[in-house]
C-alpha cells in the first residue's frame, strides 16, 4: 500500500512531559484519516511535527517516503496544505487578498485558478468583505482555500469543526468529501467529535497519551462495531455446526466467545443448541458506537 505519511517511533518531549510517545502511524494515499483522541492526547503536537513547526525529539516521519531528516523534506512539504489549530488567515484582508498572498508565498506565477478555489469553498461572493467579519465556518473554509493553493494532494486539518454551528459543520463535511472524491486529496483530520468524524473517515488512528493505540480501516471498524450477539457455550464445535448449517455470519473470538452477526430467533437458537447438548453459558446483545469503541480501547475515561 502506498502511504502519504508514515511515522516510526516518533517522540516529542517538552522537558519531562512526553507529548508524543513512540508513535507509529500510516496514512494510505486517498484516505480520509481520522485522528481521534481526547484533549491533550497529542493530536496538535503530532500535526505541528509533521508540518515542520516543531522538531521531533527522536524517531522519524516520512512524507511521500521522504524522511524528515532529509533536506528534500521542505520541498515535499509544498505538496501539503494544513490548518493547525486555527485557520492562518489575514483577518484585515479580503478572501481574495488572502489567497493572493498565499500564491506569492508559493511563488505561483498565475492567479488563474484563484476564482475556482473561492468557488469550491463557497466564498466567491464575499467581495470586499474583510475576513474579520466572516463567520467561523467561513474563516475555516477560507483557511482550507489557502491550504488548497498550490494544489496539494495531502491536507491536514486540525479540529476543523471546533466551534462551528450545525450548518458550518455540514459545509466543512461536504467540502472535505468533495475534495477527496473529486480531487483525490488525502486528508488527515484530527478531532474529538467522533460522531462527525465517523461520517467521513475511511481510516482511523486512535491516539491516547501520545501513542497510536490502534489504526483501523472504516470497514474493519464497522465490522467490529456492528450489532451482534456474543455467546459463550460449553460446546463450541456443535454451536459452529449449527451456525454453518444455517448459513449465519459469525466470528470466533480469542476469548472463547462467538460473535453472531445475523439476526436469529433466540428461542429457536437456544432450543436447537440444547438438542445438540450445547449449553449457552453467556449471552449478550452488543452494538458499539465509535465513541464506545474508543472508550473501550483507552480503557474508560472521559472528555471524548
Amino acid at each position, binding site marked *: 500500500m502506498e502511504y502519504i505519511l508514515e511515522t516510526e517511533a516518533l517522540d516529542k518531549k517538552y522537558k519531562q512531559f512526553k507529548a508524543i510517545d513512540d508513535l507509529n502511524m500510516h496514512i494510505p494515499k486517498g484516505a480520509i484519516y481520522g485522528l481521534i483522541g481526547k484533549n491533550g492526547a497529542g493530536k496538535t503536537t503530532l500535526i*505541528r511535527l509533521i508540518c515542520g*513547526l516543531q522538531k521531533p525529539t527522536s524517531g522519524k516521519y516520512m512524507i511521500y517516503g521522504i524522511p524528515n531528516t532529509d533536506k528534500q523534506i521542505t520541498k515535499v512539504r*509544498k505538496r501539503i*496544505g494544513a490548518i*493547525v*489549530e486555527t485557520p*492562518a488567515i489575514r483577518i484585515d484582508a479580503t478572501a481574495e487578498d488572502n489567497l493572493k498572498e498565499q500564491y506569492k*508565498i508559493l511563488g505561483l506565477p498565475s492567479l488563474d485558478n484563484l476564482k475556482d478555489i473561492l468557488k469550491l469553498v463557497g466564498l466567491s461572493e464575499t467581495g470586499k468583505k474583510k475576513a474579520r467579519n466572516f463567520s467561523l465556518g467561513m474563516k475555516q473554509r477560507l483557511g482550507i482555500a489557502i491550504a488548497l493553493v498550490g494544489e496539494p494532494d495531502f491536507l491536514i486539518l486540525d479540529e476543523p469543526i471546533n466551534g462551528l454551528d450545525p450548518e458550518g459543520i455540514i459545509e466543512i463535511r461536504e467540502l472535505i468529501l468533495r475534495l477527496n472524491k473529486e480531487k483525490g486529496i488525502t486528508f488527515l483530520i484530527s478531532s474529538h467529535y467522533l460522531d462527525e468524524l465517523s461520517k467521513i473517515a475511511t481510516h482511523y488512528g486512535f491516539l491516547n497519551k501520545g501513542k497510536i493505540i490502534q489504526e483501523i480501516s472504516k470497514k474493519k471498524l464497522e465490522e467490529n462495531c456492528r450489532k451482534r450477539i456474543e455467546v459463550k457455550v460449553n460446546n463450541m464445535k456443535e454451536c459452529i455446526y449449527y451456525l454453518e448449517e444455517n448459513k449465519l455470519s459469525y466470528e470466533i473470538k480469542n476469548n472463547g466467545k462467538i460473535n453472531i452477526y445475523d439476526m436469529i430467533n433466540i428461542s429457536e437458537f437456544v432450543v436447537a443448541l440444547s438438542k445438540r447438548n450445547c449449553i449457552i453459558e453467556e449471552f449478550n446483545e452488543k452494538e458499539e458506537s465509535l465513541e464506545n469503541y474508543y472508550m473501550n480501547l483507552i480503557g474508560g475515561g472521559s472528555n471524548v
Partner: protein
Amino acid sequence: MYKLLNAAFFRLKKNKIFYFIIVIMMGMALFTLYSRYADEIKYIEYNLPTTNLKSTDRLLIDNVLIIGFLMSLFTSLFVGTEYSDGVIRNKIIAGHKRANMYMSNFILSVVVGVMIEIIYLLIVASIGIPMFGSIQIPVSEFLLILLDIFMMIVSYAAIFTFISLICSNITTSTVLCLLLTLAMMVIAVLQTPGDEILNMIPAGQAMQISWLAYRECANISILWIYSLGITLIINSIGIYIFNKKELK
C-alpha cells in the same frame, strides 16, 4: 527569499501602519520646515542675524531621533502579525527555510525604514534648499552622515526584527520594541559625548548625529561600522534562535 519578499511587499501595500508612519514622517518634515520658517520671521522681526538659524543640512537630520520609534512600531506590528494571524505557519508548510523567513522580514523592515527617511529628506530638501539655502557642510561629510543614518536604520531593523520574531506574542513584542527604543534613548541622553556606548546603540548614534550642528563629532566616519557590527551580530543570533524555535 524572493517569493517571501514578493508576498511581504504585496501585504505592505495594504498595511495601515505603513501609511501611518509615512504620514508621521511627512508631518515631521513639514513641521521642521515650518519651525525654521517661523524662527526666521521672528529673527527678522527682532533684527537678529539669521546666520544663527538652523542650516538646511541641520534640518535634514532633525528627524533622526524619531526614526527608532516609528520603526519599532512598524516592525513589531507588521512582523508580529505573522504570529497573531498564524501566517508564519503557512510559510513553513510552503517549504520556506526559517533563515529566509527571518531575512525577508529584516529586509522589509530596512526598506520601510529607508523609505520613510528618503521621504523626509526629499520633502525637507525640496522645500528647505530653495527657502533656506543649500547644504553648508562639505558634500563628502554630508554623504557620510547619510550613510550613518541609513546604517543606523539597518541596525534598528535588525533589533526590532529580532524581538518580533523571537517573541511570539504581538502585544509583548510591540511593548518590548517601544520600551527598548525608549530605554536606549534614555541611556543615550545620560551619556557624555565621547562615551563608547553612544557608538554601540542606534539611539546613541542618532543622538551623536543630532549633535552635529552644535559640536564636532569625530565619530561620523565610524558610526556606520558599529551599525554593521550590531546588524551582523543580532541577525546571526536571531537566525540561530529562530531556527530552533518551537512554533505553534
